[in-house]
């Protein structure tokens, strides 16, 4: 895949073993400057391991993980903002002190850090909580503070692992807006989420990780196209005939139905069959593109719910 924009993240032939268990197998991908990159997969697929290795918390067994062409070191924390999956802040410290501390560690001076922290608190409606201890804030409020700590130094690359997890729809929308704002200012976002509607809304490209390997990788459109669709939505009159060899009727209302055609069968064959049946008259149809949610479910159907 050729891109005009330079890459911010380059993962080359990355492999990771924990003991004798190989958790990541030859993973290759790039995250381009200014894009929102969805890094997806079921629990246990290897997303957090990849991110932790990218950010220097783990040593890779094989391959290279580079940010701006270099292995990550904490000196690069000025340009990277990381919201981990396992996250938390100093529970007994005042909100403003914690925000200033992390911003200063990310290279801001104290006055600048305080001013930006107050401005962020205003933005997310928590001005009155600046001097409250974090433990006195609700879970959602704490999550806003955590995102604030991640973006206060205005990083070029934001790595956000489940940033909207457990938020109510209003606050989720607020946080999505903030992420979009950062992106519109040129930041690159690497987003881990299980919410496929967020991916559809925000992401330019995605990588879907399964069993430590890239199962799907590309723009959202490319992934949908490559995954293909085998659903036809029909508006009809008359009697819709069954044909187990060609398709399965997955949904049927009096004048509406959804057909899932069999693997190896083309749409021409399905429509050819329906056209020859005088008992049914097709008034309109649509060959559906699958949603990312459909793709995710289809990809993981053999693993069931829970840990993948």
């Amino acid at each position, binding site marked *: 895949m050729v891109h005009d924009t330079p890459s911010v993240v380059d993962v080359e032939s990355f492999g990771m073993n924990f003991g004798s268990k190989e958790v990541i197998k030859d993973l290759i991908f790039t995250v381009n400057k200014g894009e929102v990159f969805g890094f997806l997969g079921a629990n246990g697929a290897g997303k957090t391991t990849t991110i932790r290795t990218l950010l220097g*918390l783990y040593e890779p067994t094989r391959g290279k993980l580079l940010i701006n062409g270099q292995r990550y070191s*904490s000196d690069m924390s000025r340009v990277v903002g*990381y919201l981990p999956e*396992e996250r938390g*802040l100093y529970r007994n410290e005042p909100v403003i002190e914690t925000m200033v*501390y992390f911003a200063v*560690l*990310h290279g801001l001076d104290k006055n600048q850090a305080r001013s930006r922290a107050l401005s962020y608190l205003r933005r997310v409606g928590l001005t009155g909580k600046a001097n409250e201890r974090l433990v006195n804030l609700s879970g959602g409020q704490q999550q806003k503070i955590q995102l604030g700590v991640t973006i206060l130094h205005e990083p070029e690359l934001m790595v956000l692992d489940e940033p909207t997890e457990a938020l109510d729809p209003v606050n989720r929308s607020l946080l999505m807006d903030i992420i979009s704002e950062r992106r519109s200012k040129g930041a690159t976002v690497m987003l881990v989420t299980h919410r496929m509607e967020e991916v559809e809304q925000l992401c330019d490209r995605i990588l879907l990780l399964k069993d430590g390997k890239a199962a799907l990788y590309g723009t959202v459109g490319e992934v949908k196209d490559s995954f293909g669709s085998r659903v036809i939505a029909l508006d009809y009159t008359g009697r819709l005939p069954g044909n187990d060899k060609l398709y399965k009727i997955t949904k049927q209302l009096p004048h509406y139905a959804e057909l899932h055609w069999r693997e190896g069968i083309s749409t021409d064959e399905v429509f050819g069959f329906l056209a020859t049946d005088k008992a049914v008259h097709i008034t309109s149809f649509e060959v559906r593109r699958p949603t990312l949610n459909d793709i995710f479910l289809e990809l993981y159907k053999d693993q069931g719910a829970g840990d993948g």
Partner: protein
Amino acid sequence: MANVRNVISFEVLRNLRKKTFWFASIAPPILILAIIGITHASSRSANQASQQQAAAVTKDSKIAVLDETGVISKKTLIKEQLISEPTAQAGIAAVKNGSLSAFIYYPKNVTETGIQLYAQDRGISNPTPYNSLAAALLVDSAKARAVAAIRNSQIVQLLENEPTVTSTTYKNGSQTNDEADIIAPGIFLVAFLALVVLQAYLMITSTTEEKENRTAEMLLTSIKSRSLITGKILSLFILGLVQLLVIIVPLLIAYGLFRQHITLPGGVTLSRIPLDPKTIVFGALFFVGGAVVFTGFLVGFGSLFPSAQEAGRYLGLAIISAFLPIYAIGYILNSTHMLIVNLFTFFPLTAPTTLLIRNAIGTISVSEALVALAVVALSAVVAIMFAMKAFRYGAMEYGRRISVKELLH
């Protein structure tokens, strides 16, 4: 370096803001002073009560004596209102039937068999008050007889009062004062042990908060673990000094106000405490080195645990290792070449206390001190590296204890 400063500033200020920090700083010295005060007052009161009771009991008691040594004169017996018993059996029988409060029997060969006392049982809280009377009666009578037989007044005085000894000691041609010489370097020993007691919990739990709060991952991507751990160790050191100042400053003020009533060991005043530059420099270096060794090991050890509660269970071990040399003080004072003393001198966790004791009492040579200092410095580096590795590795292991074997793997 800037981030080390940031960590120190954050850690020190947030601890100074905590009421628990000040409580933990002020409570132990107050508690110790209270215990000393109560013990002293209780012992004084018990002594007075015992003396008063003994005097009252002796005065109202009917006591009989059988002196086969012939040392105690009849005049003394009359003066002390004591009855003379003809036989030991009669005296014992009189105590048994309650007609005598006590019977004191001095056998002929008293120096071999000792004095025998028979008395009414007065319960555990009222021990018999006659023991000292029995001993004093014989000793005073013996002295009186000796004094009467000797005409030399100086010998008489020597028998009546133990002479005082004034000693003057020299080292390398200069006059020394053993007890006073201990004071200045001894302060480092006291300060080190106080630091361990006051700071051990903060040390061992200093990184567990980051693990419990899930802050570690965000921190480790923002700052080098080396800067974080160095900052934490230095901030613990600063907080320890603050705690020591909280104890020392009131003591100095009290000393300033009441110095005329206080005598330091060796009979010196505060302004005349002997200050030997060599022992003070070594004392300071052993103190700082020891503090870093302890802090490093405890911070690292704490990093292996997922919570403060779990790490805190091992606090006792850390404190014991610092105090272990105190239990072996007899060896350290008298047998510096014994294996145990050498082990304590060079084993990282016992070295600081042992070295500070030996430095205070002057049983460590300069060459030995330099070698020990190198060992302490090396231990400090190892301790800091252990702390960094333990935090870096342990930080990702939420809810699980890391074994040292895993760490070294």
